[in-house]
């Protein structure tokens, strides 16, 4: 039992959990034909069958039930404001399954030359709102109300000690839906994690329909013809958003240290980490000269790296790997698309630089609060 718990604690650590996810993700949600081929070969598409859903749901429920026997797990999962996130885990899983299940079914139908499930023969296939839709809505409404009522009677809303601005709790956590952003604070300064990245999420979401203009695949679930869009959206939504929230809620304890789900939140847990800036690597470790005084000279390497990343990589990709995409989108749409993707990718990149090299900032200009 203890062995199993220790195993889970280890697997749950960000490095392992995130790496496993990164490796598996695009095989589960194929990004292109190559991944799709492997998806079929590894039989990962079976994940979207009814059987797999039932097994997965049982496993997840089993894990939670087992976990509840552990005091550390219980104290974090049953914290009133964390209950919705347990719910979120199940709901996100179920609806991911539901949409993928229907998508793969429709893909199969299309392949066999049949019509998709949502096929609609205007104006014959019309249903009346009264009573057909109103009936469904009414039931949904009753169920939702009943659910909320039971939840409200069963679980009291939290209220802690009166506010005390001089005594900060440890850890101090933002509301759960912003914990993905707070988790990003580990790797980015507040101006990025708290301001720029959230703004870009909003802008990026709004930009989706203006970038993905392929009129096919609208109005029904499908995957095959929308691989790139769906895989990228899934990655942002499931990994960079939901997973970070779950990590931030359940696995971050005092001093924002990592704690496994079965680990006691020890305030004195030490993570002796000294993080080093890119410029320090260059001047101190490699050139052995000591840091230059001029800010520009000091940071020029990081600036060059970033310029290369944002200015050289996009045209390079457009010429090679993303040639078709570039042709389809045109230069303006392609530029917006690729810059948004590259910015999103800075998060996993910075994570790995941190884990592997203890890298703190690529550009560090604390004099002007500009650290990246």
């Amino acid at each position, binding site marked *: 039992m203890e062995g199993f718990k220790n195993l889970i604690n280890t697997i749950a650590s960000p490095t392992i959990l995130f790496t496993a996810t990164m490796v598996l993700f695009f095989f589960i949600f194929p990004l292109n034909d190559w991944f799709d081929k492997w998806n079929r070969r590894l039989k990962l598409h079976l994940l979207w069958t009814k059987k797999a859903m039932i097994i997965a749901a049982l496993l997840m429920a089993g894990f939670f039930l087992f976990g509840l026997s552990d005091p550390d797990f219980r104290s974090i999962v049953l914290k009133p*404001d964390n209950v*919705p996130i347990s*719910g*979120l885990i199940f709901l*996100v899983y179920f609806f991911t399954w539901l*949409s993928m299940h*229907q*998508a793969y079914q429709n893909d199969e139908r299309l392949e066999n030359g049949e019509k998709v*499930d*949502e096929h*609609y023969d205007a104006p014959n296939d019309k*249903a*009346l709102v*009264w009573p057909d*839709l109103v009936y*469904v*809505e009414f039931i*949904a*409404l009753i169920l*939702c*109300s009943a659910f*909320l009522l039971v*939840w*409200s009677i069963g*679980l*009291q*809303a939290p*209220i802690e*000690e*009166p*506010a005390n601005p001089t005594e900060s*709790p440890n850890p*101090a*956590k*933002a*509301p759960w*839906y912003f914990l993905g952003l*707070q988790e990003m604070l580990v790797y980015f300064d*507040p*101006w990025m994690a*708290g301001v720029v990245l959230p703004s870009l999420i*909003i802008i990026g*979401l*709004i930009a*989706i*329909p203006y970038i993905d*203009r*392929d*009129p*096919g*695949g*609208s*109005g*029904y*679930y499908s995957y095959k013809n929308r691989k790139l869009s769906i895989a990228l*959206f899934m990655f942002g*939504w499931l990994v960079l958003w939901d997973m970070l929230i779950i990590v931030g809620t359940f696995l971050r304890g005092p001093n924002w240290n990592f704690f496994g789900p079965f680990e006691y939140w020890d305030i004195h847990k030490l993570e002796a980490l000294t993080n080093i800036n890119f410029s320090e690597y260059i001047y101190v470790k490699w050139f052995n000269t000591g840091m230059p005084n001029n800010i520009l000279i000091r940071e020029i390497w990081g600036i060059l790296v970033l310029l290369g990343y944002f200015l050289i990589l996009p045209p390079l990709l457009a010429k090679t790997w993303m040639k078709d995409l570039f042709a389809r989108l045109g230069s303006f749409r392609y530029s917006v698309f690729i810059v948004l993707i590259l910015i999103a990718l800075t998060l996993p990149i910075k994570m790995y630089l941190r884990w592997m090299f203890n890298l703190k900032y690529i550009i560090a*200009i604390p004099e*002007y*609060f500009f650290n990246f």
Partner: protein
Amino acid sequence: MLEKFRDTQFYKSIFRGGGVPKSRRQRMMVVLNSVFLHLHPVRLPKHAVKLKFTWCMGGLTFFLFLIETISGILLMFYYRPTIEYAYTDIIDLAEQVPFGIMREIHRWGAHAMVITVWLHMFRVFMTGSYKPPREFNWAVGVILLLLTLLLSFTGYLLPWDQLAIWAITVGSNMARATPFFGYEGPGASLLAIGDINFITMASDARFALIGGRFMGEAALLRFYVLHCIGLPFIIMIFMAIHFWRIRKDGGISTPV
């Protein structure tokens, strides 16, 4: 008995037409005659009424918003947004008010609404319903998502307990790192004439948000006003646009 009642002058005066809607025409008239049902079209594609297509998530989000409005109004009867009273009013709410689960309904409903908006967005994405002609409504939806989160965030402060102020402190501290407009943000020092900085601790984005240099009375009042009046007002306008556009864009998306 019920059928008779439906033929009375009283019933007919409320529900135009009266009687049990039996024929196709009568059923269509039910929708056309009702201000509430009129949000809907009269007829719609068969797959659009199926739960497995829309998951009813948009509808549930709207329903939860209505629940939040009603329970929120009830909470406002008891709650005073001052440092002196806020906390004790919340305590009293649970202990003194009969059937005191309004706060639970409001809080859990808010959490649920955040989840349903996300899932609604996810469903819209997966059915490709953001594609033309629905691009703009998707954008309106993104604004609705943002507003939902902000509503939830502003409400989080109001109990004025440790959980509340520290969660909001973590959140609003980010504002002081806003590029150019936060006093610890990159570029803020560029907004200066000579030695005079325009962006200081008492004039930056964070100051605007919490109405002071520290979390206090002004922050509570600001969040209260935004939470109870400002944001609901704005979100209702955007919801109206959202619903209007669903109809104008041809109703629930269908395969072409």
